[in-house]
Every structure is written in C-alpha cells, then in structure tokens.
C-alpha cells in the first residue's frame, strides 16, 4: 500500500500548528475541493462554500486519523462527498414539502418548449463538454503544482521561462517539471477517460 510521505508530513505540521502548513494545505486544496463540490451541486454556490468549509473543518479535526494511504486530496474528496450526501439528504427532506410551480408537469412542458435548439447535436455537445470537464478533473487529481504548471503552459499559454520565474526555479527544472507533469496527466486522464466513447475523443497527435 503506498504511503504519501509529503502529505503525511504536511498532516504532522498541521497538527503541530505550523502556519505555513495551513497556508499550503488551504492553497493547494481549497480551489480543487470547491470545483469537486461545484460539479456535484452546480446550482447552489452558497451550499458549495458551506460544504467545503465543513469538509475542511472536519478534515482538520480528524487529521490525526489520516494514515497517508491515499493522497490527502483524495481523503478530502471522500469527506467532501459525505458532506454533499448529507446535505442532499437534508435538502431532499426539505424539498419533499415544497412543490415549485415550475416543477408541475404542464408548466415544465411549456417552459421546455421555449428552449432554443442547439446548433450542434446534443450528444456531441455533451461529449465536448465532458472531455473538457475530465481534463479539468484530471488536472485537479494531480499534485497541485503539476496541475498548475500544465494549465499555465498549455491552457493559458505561458512560456517555460515565465513558469520558471513564477516558481523561482531554473528553466531546466521547469522543463523537467513539465515533462513529469505531462506523464502524470496522461496516466490520470487515461484512467478517467476509459469511460468515454472511442471516436468522439480521439486525440490527433
């Protein structure tokens, strides 16, 4: 079973009250966890913030139980998933007592009839959106700095020199970091993308 040494070390520093460790913990995980929750609760940004805050609080309270057998972010996602599930359960109980006018079948049908037709087929549109989402999920699943450098380089178009400057490392080190990040991304994306249909997502080298 793998042990995530860096994450374990960060957990120990958090337990000891190291302020820099908290900054690192928050900066590396908050945005990723926020996105993790957002795709599961796309219509409720207030709930997303509350849930992520609760998940982070719970994780910090339970940090002494983190065994580093999975990545810290994976562990956080598990906690966040439980929080989302609890929240949805509570909302379901609440919603059982509310019937919105727009949820009534006849009004729903009328509203649907006003929606404009899409220019491209819904399936193709879905596949494209899903591919982009999976790329973003894969970036989030990587160690935080891997995801960042790939995004800076290939999505935002920064030069390797810019990235080296931003990370305060040499150009060769930045190049090497990018190469490692690309390999890691390919592995993660491969495992995520296994569910996609063959033709719609074939990458043309």
């Amino acid at each position, binding site marked *: 079973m793998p042990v995530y040494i860096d994450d374990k070390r960060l957990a120990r520093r958090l337990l000891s009250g190291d302020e820099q460790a908290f900054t690192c913990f928050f900066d590396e995980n908050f945005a990723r966890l926020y996105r993790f929750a957002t795709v599961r609760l796309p219509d409720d940004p207030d709930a997303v913030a509350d849930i992520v805050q609760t998940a982070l*609080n719970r994780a910090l309270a339970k940090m002494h139980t983190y065994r580093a057998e999975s990545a810290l972010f994976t562990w956080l996602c598990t906690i966040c998933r439980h929080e989302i599930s609890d929240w949805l359960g509570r909302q379901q109980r609440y919603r059982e007592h509310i019937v919105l006018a727009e949820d009534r079948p006849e009004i729903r049908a009328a509203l649907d009839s006003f929606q404009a037709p899409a220019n491209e087929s819904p399936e193709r549109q879905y596949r494209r959106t899903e591919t982009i989402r999976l790329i973003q999920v894969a970036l989030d699943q990587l160690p935080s700095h891997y995801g960042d450098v790939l995004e800076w380089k290939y999505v935002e178009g920064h030069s390797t020199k810019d990235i080296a400057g931003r990370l305060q490392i040499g150009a060769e080190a930045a190049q090497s970091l990018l*190469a490692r990040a690309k390999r890691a991304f390919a592995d993660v994306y491969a495992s995520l*993308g296994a569910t996609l249909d063959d033709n719609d997502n074939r990458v043309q080298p």
Partner: protein
Amino acid sequence: MTDNPNLPPRESGDAVEALLGQASRRPRPPAKATADVRAAVHSQWQALVRGRRRRRRVVAAGLAAGLFTVAVAVTQLLSVDPTVPAPVAVSARQHGDVFLVGNQSELLPLSPASAVVAGQTVLTSSDAGLGLDWHSGISVRVDASTRVEMTADNAIYLQTGRVYIDTASDENAESLVVKTDVGTVTHVGTRYMVTVKDDELTVAVRDGRVRIDGHYHDAAAQPGDQVRMQGSARPVVDRLPRYGDTWRWTETLAGALDVDGRPADAFLRWVGHETGYRLVYDDPATETTVRETRLKGRVDADPRTELALRLMTMDLDYEIDAARGELRVRRRGGDAAD
C-alpha cells in the same frame, strides 16, 4: 496503460498538449468565498491546535508531577490564556436543529464539525441528535430535547434530557463526570446513558462500572443495571438489557468507521458494539469467511443500515435475535430476518 485509443499515447507529449489545448482554465472559486472559508477554517484550526497544545501541556505536567507537582501545576495554570476557552469536543455527527446558547441566551446554530468550548451549553430540538468527539477520545451523544453544558474538559452538566457516554474507543480515555441536579455520575471505562427528566435521574449501564453520588444517597451500577434517583427517595435499581429500543437513538449518532482493508469481522463487532447485540457466527466456516473478507471504504451510516448494505455484497445473511440479544451471522442460504 493507454490501451484505449481515445487516450493520449504514453510518452506522447504532443498528444497531451493537444488534449490540454482543448481545455479552458479551471474555474476559480469566488474571491469572497475563498476569503470567508479561509478565515473560518483557519479560526477553527487554531482552536483545535490550542486545545491539543493545552492537553499536551497537561500530560507533560502529569509526567513531571513526581518531582515538581506544585511548580508545574502553577506553570500550567499560568500558561493557559484565560480569555480563550479551550475546545473540549468537536461535533462529529448531528441531525435536526442543534444550538449553542449564546451569552444573551440567544440560540446559535451549531455547524457540523464545529468545536465546542468549555462553558458552552448545547441545546437540541425535539427531533435532533448530536454526536460529540470529546477531546480525550470519548464519544458523547446527546439525544433530542436535551440541554447540556460543557462545564470543563472533564465534566458536563446535564440540565435536562439524555446523554450517552462511550469510552470503548479509548480505554485510557480520561474520565468524564456527568453532573446533574440530582447527583453526579462518574465511570470507569464504560458505556452508559444518563437521563434527567423533571426531578428524576436515571442511569443505565451497558458496560463497566458507574458510581452515582446523589445529594441524598449514593449508588453503584453494574452492566445491565438501571438506577433511578429522585429527591430523597432511596435509589431504585431495575434490570435493563444492553440492547433494545432504549438504546436505539444512540446508533444514529455513532461516529464513522474506517473499514478500508480491515476484515469484515471488525465491522460486525462494531455493529454489535453499537447495537448492544452479541455477535454470534452460526458455524466455524462462517467465521472463517468473515475473518478473511476484507472491506473497502468507510462506514458512515447508522450500524443497522450499514449492516444490511454490507452483507448484501457478501455471501452472508444475518438475523437479529432480540429475545437472546444476539446478532447471528451465517453464510447465505439460511433464514434471514431483522
């Protein structure tokens, strides 16, 4: 790794670059939400760290007590900032409306995973429940319609309602004293329930030993005892099984259990622990199956729900024999009932 033709060929940098080129920048959380959550989580984390440091200092003082008891104790007292109350527990699980009573007697909703500090009073509504992870490792569960004050890091004051104490997860856990208007309840490594209703104090013991120092009478309780005290009347001792409806509310507040990689036997023993039923395997082959089966993930629902769900995925059935107080497990094929 990349047998699927959809995926970028391994080591093909261009393919990865082309794929990444399709993506847009990952969405960023709103700045205000980031700042708000950072501040709230940071504050919570600092409270937890202060609590840990304080406990560590207390432990260190205990170790040094042989030589410098008085001096160290004074140092400890001086080193604790009296303006910052230490957290005594964290809300591990809750349902319904749970409140903290504020300085002006206003009700402040208690958020999940929040710290509760010494001096705070918790109030639960008529359909609520709260599971607290006490700093010393004890599980304190608060039933509906209960008002309880966390008076110190080793004491609570139950004004009305019902609490359940479980020290089983940590046999070395420090003792927790439950004070009531009728008497004070202390324990030695046990699980028990304390109820205050009107002027009556009821203490039911599942495991271990409990002592009750009443204002008029004292009493000691063993497993299976239920002691009732009211005013100056002599204590009444009844028998109460360690399972059944009286204990059922505590199950919904049981903390989560990490079962990843652990044998199914550990999970079933946890179910037995939480429900009060004795775990019985129908035959040695069943026991072998259970010991050799490894589980995945985390148990987060109440024990009975998890039992039904988990056993569905194994080749096992179970039966709860309420008359005998047994949770019987057998290989699939026998009669199963709840």
